């Protein structure tokens, strides 16, 4: 009798899958469920125009105590084709000739687990300016050449053999500086205080000038036409003066 024993419907696909898993296990590349992130937003320099600050991957690479942990920085277009085993491009060729480069290599000793509370554990990408043009330092942690975006991941290598990697981060966008002349400098409204001050002072000055003009007109008419004024009382003032003279003269006269 043919097909006496019932077969599992997916038996055909399971064997290749098993083989694939075995192959992967033989290579030993562990896919860590960790996505690199930017550090705390409290930092003023979290992203600048050519650097950014990542959280350290603490307590992620405990299974690979002897590996060197590298940071891979790539443009988003190079993420899909990135080969962990291939020789990575140099920082100096990034991003035109090389879509990705590796930098900031360290051992697990630099990332002790667990993280001490209150400690700032960060990695500043782009802080090394001395090796920017030095071709002999392809793993230079130099300033990023443009505003990005960039994607990063951590890769653990034993020798040149990749043993563990994290997920790729979300695209990281850096700051772009704009020209200060785009700001409006003038266009300041005159404040209410200044307008009040100007108008009140002008009015007062105008009144004073009018008063001076009235004075001069009065003087002119007084000098030419004699005592035609209605508000001056010459006899009052004259009497006062004569009184004064008389007060002083009388004792002299008596003497």
């Amino acid at each position: 009798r043919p097909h006496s024993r019932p077969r599992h419907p997916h038996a055909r696909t399971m064997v290749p899958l098993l083989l694939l898993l075995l192959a992967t296990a033989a290579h030993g590349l562990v896919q860590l469920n960790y996505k690199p992130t930017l550090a705390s937003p409290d930092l003023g320099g979290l992203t600048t125009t050519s650097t950014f600050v990542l959280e350290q991957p603490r307590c992620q690479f405990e299974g690979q105590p002897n590996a060197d942990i590298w940071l891979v920085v790539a443009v988003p277009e190079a993420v899909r084709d990135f080969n962990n085993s291939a020789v990575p491009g140099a920082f100096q060729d990034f991003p035109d000739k090389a879509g990705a480069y590796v930098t900031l290599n360290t051992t697990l000793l630099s990332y002790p687990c667990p993280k001490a509370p209150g400690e700032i554990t960060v990695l500043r990408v782009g802080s090394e300016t001395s090796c920017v043009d030095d071709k002999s330092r392809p793993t230079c942690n130099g300033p990023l050449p443009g505003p990005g975006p960039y994607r990063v991941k951590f890769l653990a290598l034993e020798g040149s053999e990749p043993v563990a990697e994290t997920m790729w981060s979300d695209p990281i966008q850096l700051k772009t500086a704009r020209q200060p002349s785009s700001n409006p400098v003038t266009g300041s409204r005159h404040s209410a205080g200044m307008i009040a001050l100007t108008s009140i002072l002008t009015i007062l000055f105008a009144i004073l000038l009018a008063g001076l003009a009235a004075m001069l007109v009065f003087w002119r008419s007084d000098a030419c036409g004699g005592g035609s004024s209605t508000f001056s009382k010459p006899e009052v003032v004259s009497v006062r003066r004569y009184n004064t003279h008389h007060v002083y003269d009388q004792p002299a006269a008596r003497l």
Partner: protein
Amino acid sequence: MAKSDDGIHILQGLLVFGNVVIGMCSIALIAECIFFVSDPHGLYPLLEATENDDIYAAAWIGIFVGFALFALSILGIIGVIKSNRTLLLVYIILMLITYAFEMASCITAATHRDYLTPNVFLKQMLERYQKSETDNNNDKWMTDGVTKTWDKLMLQDHCCGVWGPSDWQEYTSAFRHTHSDADYPWPRNCCVMDAQGSPVNLDGCKLGVPGYYNSNGCYDAISGPMNTHAWGVAWFGFAILCWTFCVLLGTMFYWSRIEY
């Protein structure tokens, strides 16, 4: 007759009192304007570089107006007591001229204070701070003034930029041409310094860790003294002019009452 006699005496007394007050206020005006001209906060180079330092011109005019008012108040007192028409006419005309100058000073101080917005200082800081290639001597003088003033300001008042350290990131600047962003995200003087004048933690400063760099802007430290200066000159001058207005009107009326 006695009533108008008393009236004239009262007017005389009031005018003498008015002139005494003008004399005292003029001394206060001189002192205030000398204080502002002496620039105790060291902000004059910033104004000089805006090429609009008219609030200083207003203070200088205030000093001379103060002297003139003092002399004229004495002349006024003598003129009122002696009831001399000529003296009082001279007094009134000279007072009007001084009044015009003081008016100019007040209006200048008020108008030009309105011109000094944050964007003016921001633009100037970005264009001149640590600028390396200067066109001529005048440019070099102004650039040096701006650089020294900002350095001193950031150290003394523990601040950075006009609005904050982000000014250096958001805008291109002359500083950025000579100092790379990775080494100097903001000037060194934005870092918290120790007693010897070097940063307490340079990496902390570059990262922007709170406590190792100055995260607030310097605009308050600039606008505070400038507002005091401008409004001090403008409003005190305004007060003196209002009082002088009353005294002058009274003097004109008194003059018209004197027998020639």
